């Protein structure tokens, strides 16, 4: 066993030796090592986060036929550091009549709710993080803390725009949590476990090929959960200025901003873990944990890129359209999909691998097609209802 194969264990063994040499008890040394490991992982995440700012700005520029940051350093790579310095030396204002404790707590909770998600991310076969057997629900639980931080930020700012922005944002987040929870049942059914590592291990066929519709619904719900376009009505500039974080300045605003980017990247990672095999890629993960991490980061980046692609392509939709889309389309479809998947899973249990995959894909296609047809005919009726009288008026002229 060498460093290339299991770096964590070797580092931990070495550190245990060092710490016990200083006269620490093994338990205390263990806790200290866990603490240092957590600190290291979160520091790396923050560095990734800084570069996400650059990636996001560069990619949106390409989508919009611009160049993006290009002045500071090669390809503008120093730009995010300049951004951070700017945020740090900004004055930290607190609006009049704000609820100081809640106001200051909100950005911290917002960032924390994203960072704790990485406690359960399996980075490589030998670096599992915490392999919780309730991993799937942990993702939703961390999301609830994020929802709470948004309400806290909006309410404590003592500003009409921020309260309305927060309420809209929360209404959207909780609404889209229902289809998200529902489609998260589907990888759970396939893997027979809620632990993320078990889900990766049972993906000899990517779950995307077993249930493409579930992957799609998860992505849509994740985008809404992140509050990104087309579901970013909370920060509708023309009506609400900047939404729940309007009164925040300096590093506190930076926490919301950085938290949003890291959250998007994290959900790219979860999308990869649930539907695209996580760190697995044709046995590459067995060669070295470093390669496994590279595979996971690459897949997470692809997911993040898809989220950005949607963000800069589709325009913002209204809150009533968004909630109608969720409750009248996405939620029923995802529950029907759960029922169909459970039924097919039971019927095809003993079946041959290919039959199982074909059956699953077919049921997905049928559910997707039927629901799209129903939605199309409903939309047609709605159009006729709205456009009907207008044509009569035109006939008069």
């Amino acid at each position, binding site marked *: 066993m060498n460093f290339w194969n299991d770096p964590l264990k070797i580092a931990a063994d070495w550190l245990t030796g060092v710490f016990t040499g200083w006269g620490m008890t093994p338990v205390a040394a263990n806790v200290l090592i866990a603490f240092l490991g957590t600190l290291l992982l979160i520091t790396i995440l923050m560095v990734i986060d800084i570069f996400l700012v650059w990636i996001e700005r560069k990619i949106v520029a390409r989508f919009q036929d611009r160049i993006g940051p290009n002045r500071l350093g090669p390809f503008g790579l120093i730009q995010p550091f300049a951004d951070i310095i700017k945020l740090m030396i900004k004055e930290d204002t607190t609006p009049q009549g704000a609820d100081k404790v809640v106001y200051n707590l909100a950005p911290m909770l917002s960032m924390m709710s994203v960072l704790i998600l990485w406690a359960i991310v399996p980075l490589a076969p030998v670096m599992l993080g915490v392999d919780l*057997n309730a991993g799937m629900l942990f993702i939703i*639980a961390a*999301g*609830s803390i994020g*929802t*709470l931080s948004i309400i806290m930020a909006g*309410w404590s700012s003592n500003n009409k725009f921020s309260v309305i922005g927060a309420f809209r944002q929360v209404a959207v987040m*909780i609404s889209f*949590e229902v289809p998200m929870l529902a489609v998260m049942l589907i990888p759970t059914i396939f893997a027979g476990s*809620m632990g993320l590592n078990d889900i990766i291990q049972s993906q000899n066929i990517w779950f995307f090929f077993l249930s493409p519709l579930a992957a799609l619904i998860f992505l849509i719900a994740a985008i809404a959960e992140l509050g990104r376009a087309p579901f970013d009505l909370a920060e509708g500039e023309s009506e609400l200025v900047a939404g729940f974080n309007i009164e925040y300045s300096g590093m506190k605003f930076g926490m919301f901003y950085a938290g949003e980017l890291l959250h998007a990247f994290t959900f790219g990672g979860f999308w990869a873990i649930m539907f695209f095999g996580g760190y697995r890629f044709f046995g590459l993960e067995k060669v070295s944990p470093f390669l496994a991490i590279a595979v996971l980061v690459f897949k997470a980046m692809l997911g993040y890129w898809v989220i950005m692609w949607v963000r800069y392509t589709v325009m913002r939709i209204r809150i009533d359209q968004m909630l109608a889309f969720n409750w009248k389309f996405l939620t029923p479809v995802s529950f029907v999909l759960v029922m169909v998947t459970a039924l097919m899973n039971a019927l095809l249990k003993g079946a041959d691998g290919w039959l199982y995959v074909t059956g699953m894909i077919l049921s997905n296609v049928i559910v997707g097609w039927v629901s799209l047809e129903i939605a199309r005919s409903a939309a047609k009726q709605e159009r006729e209802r709205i456009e009907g009288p207008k044509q009569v008026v035109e006939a008069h002229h």
Partner: protein
Amino acid sequence: MTGEQVIFLIVGAVTLLSGFMVVTVRNLVHAALWLVATLFGVAIVYTLLNAGFLAVVQVVVYIGAIAILFIFAVMLTRREAAETGAPLNNNWWVGALMAGLTFSGLVYLLQTWSGFSKTASTIPSGFDAISQLGAALTSPQGYVLPFEVASVLLLAALVGAVYLAFNKK
């Protein structure tokens, strides 16, 4: 005193203190936020009891849904008088007396019970609480009826709440 006991004492003290703030603080949004702190403390107590699934469910259901519902309801029903007046009614001392009596009565009754200070057995390796729970909730010898009745209860609550809050006279 072991590390586990220290964690329990800190968490328990914080939980009880936040619970006390819930029932005494004037601002109702603050009360709801203190409730979140209390519920989070209870979630940590669940993890101490090796019930990780319930801890996560506690955060999802209580903090993610019930606390949000409370804050929405507070924002919908706000009125000046409710926030400036006393948080407690004139007979609060009766309530305090009742609560004190309940607490001392419960503790007195419990400490006469023989199993009061029993310690936990070790959990057998390979024990998966979620899987066991799934089996218990679906097997006809288990709790399949409560499982289905819970869904009927939720349906009744939804229909009732929608009807109550929004029927147009």
